[in-house]
């Protein structure tokens, strides 16, 4: 049995660990609220832009001169996986789940004879994927704190992807991230971002009986809009990721705090038992000493 002193030290160290995980849980809760608000604040823009793109694409999409970003390369050979994770761990299975989904999809495509390349945003995702697909990672980026990402950085990713797409580096791009469902569930999600998938047109071209006028023409507006639509999709995914990361972290830290509590309880019982055993031994020694006299 461990000595009383060693047990006491052990209890002390578990207690301070518990304090840390508790604090981290609280920080995650506060950041989660902010991340959720941010994710919601971005919704109006995304919805409106989606509506406009849908309407324009329905008009222009069928034509032969439809933009490349919309019609695609016409091939389906090289797939690019944009895997968005976080830079930091201690968030339960958050990063692992996203990477696992990407890996499963990649293996499916590879089995079909397609080529899969990776574009990782976030150090943790890169870590997992580089073990299996070291040579297929074309670019990796470390975004830092997900909660502080601005639209500019999303735009940067979008521009980079579009440039690669236009250079013919890949035919289809998929985005992997975790959708925030609740604090307890974050769902790994796959979404095709290139070529742009047109959402079903909700409204038609006439508005209250009048025909919409465009300035400049529909094609130019659409060409201007598509990169922005891709950027907003990435931005939205990163925002979802930020909320998911904090939710996952909160749950993980809550579990850690509870585990530490259980451990402290067990150690405390062991400590009390040892203490009582020591007292009993002492008493026995005194009594037998007194009897000997």
């Amino acid at each position, binding site marked *: 049995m461990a000595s009383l002193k060693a047990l006491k030290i052990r209890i002390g160290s578990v207690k301070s660990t518990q304090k840390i995980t508790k604090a981290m849980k609280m920080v995650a809760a506060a950041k989660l609220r902010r991340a959720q608000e941010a994710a919601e604040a971005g919704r*109006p*823009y995304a919805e409106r832009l989606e509506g406009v793109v849908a309407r324009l694409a329905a008009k222009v999409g069928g034509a032969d001169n439809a933009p490349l970003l919309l019609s695609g390369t016409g091939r389906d050979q090289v797939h690019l996986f944009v895997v968005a994770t976080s830079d930091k761990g201690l968030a339960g299975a958050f990063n692992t789940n996203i990477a696992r989904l990407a890996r499963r999809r990649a293996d499916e495509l590879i089995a079909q004879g397609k080529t899969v390349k990776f574009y990782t945003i976030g150090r943790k995702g890169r870590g997992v994927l580089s073990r299996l697909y070291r040579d297929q990672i074309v670019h990796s980026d470390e975004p830092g704190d997900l909660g502080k990402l601005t639209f500019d950085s*999303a735009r940067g990713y979008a521009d980079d992807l579009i440039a690669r797409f236009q250079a013919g580096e890949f035919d289809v791009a998929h985005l992997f991230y975790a959708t925030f469902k609740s604090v307890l569930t974050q769902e790994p999600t796959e979404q095709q971002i290139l070529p742009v998938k047109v959402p079903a047109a909700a409204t038609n071209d006439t508005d209250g009986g009048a025909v919409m006028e465009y300035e400049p023409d529909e094609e130019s507006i659409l060409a201007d809009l598509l990169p922005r639509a891709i950027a907003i999709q990435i931005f939205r995914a990163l925002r979802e990721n930020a909320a998911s990361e904090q939710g996952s972290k909160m749950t993980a830290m809550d579990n850690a705090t509870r585990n530490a509590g259980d451990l402290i309880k067990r150690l405390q019982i062991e400590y009390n038992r040892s203490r009582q055993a020591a007292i009993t031994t002492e008493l026995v020694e005194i009594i037998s000493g007194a009897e000997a006299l």
Partner: protein
Amino acid sequence: MPLHFELVTPEKLLRSEEVHMVVVPGSEGDFGVLEGHAPFMSTIRDGEIMVHKTAGGAPEAIRVEGGLAEVTTRGLTVLAEKAG
């Protein structure tokens, strides 16, 4: 009748209010939007949107970058990458 004006950026819904008139720097020239404007869509060049709260009042300027203006029967919506 006032014009319903919305200014939206990816980060958040910046404005949603009733105004008298908005002058938008369209990519092919500035245009003013009043209540009852015909449905219209235009890209915007980087510049300033002038928001006239009341007729004859001093306009408020809001700087926008990279955007699109859409006029429907519901009002004017400006989607900008950056504003403020």
